[in-house]
């Protein structure tokens, strides 16, 4: 399965805005903590050196978060098209 190793954190946050309406997120020391649908994903990396503008984060973390929060796969694929194959299992 072809999946990018890294994706821009800014794109992931935009996907959350579109696909997880009403979610909350905050920065901890090492991660972005995302809560939605009664569930919490505390392990989304902040980016290199703890900075959100040091963009890229591991795509496996994004896949894990989409699964854990039960974000609709079709919406995630639409807003992160480079990862569509991973989200949709095609």
């Amino acid at each position, binding site marked *: *399965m072809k999946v990018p*190793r890294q994706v821009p954190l800014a794109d992931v946050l935009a996907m959350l805005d579109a696909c997880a309406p009403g979610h909350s997120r905050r920065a901890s*020391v*090492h*991660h972005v903590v995302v809560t939605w649908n009664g569930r919490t994903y505390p*392990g989304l990396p902040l980016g290199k050196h703890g900075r959100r503008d040091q963009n890229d984060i591991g795509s496996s973390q994004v896949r894990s978060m989409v*699964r*854990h929060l039960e974000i609709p796969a079709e919406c995630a694929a639409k807003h992160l098209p480079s990862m569509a194959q991973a989200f949709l299992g095609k």
Partner: protein
Amino acid sequence: MNVYPLFFNHGGLVAGRGFLAHVRIQGRCLLEETDEAFVSFFGVNPGGVAGQGSTQDEARRDFLEHLRLVVFDFASEALSFEHFKELVEAFVAETNRPSEAQWLEAVAAVRAGEVDRSGYSRTLPAEQPSAAIVVRVRESSPAAIAPDMNQQDDMRVAACG
């Protein structure tokens, strides 16, 4: 694409605001050989963490590092040892349900002999996930710290028979 259902052991000392804790987590995770030279680890219990790398060793280290850092985040935020213990226990208990479904499918594949278990020779019965998912958080004083708190990380394939 090979997928391995694993149990893992991870722990160590954690410093919080005015407390020292010994944390031990025995949980479940899923190893996926996603692509050529790309391996992913997905947490099942706890479900809120993952890792990746070019090899299984690299991905395993990344997964355990993120797990360790999430616990450190809890220690930074907790106002007391009791609060920290609640955060860690809730984190481990929150199951990644889609990953759990894949984990159970992978257990069936291991039992059917469809998965190469070389490198993960020890196994645990997969029917004991509730017993195998363990989180122990104990407050420690400097006088109580002893070498038996040192713990090597461990991963085992889930299946039996």
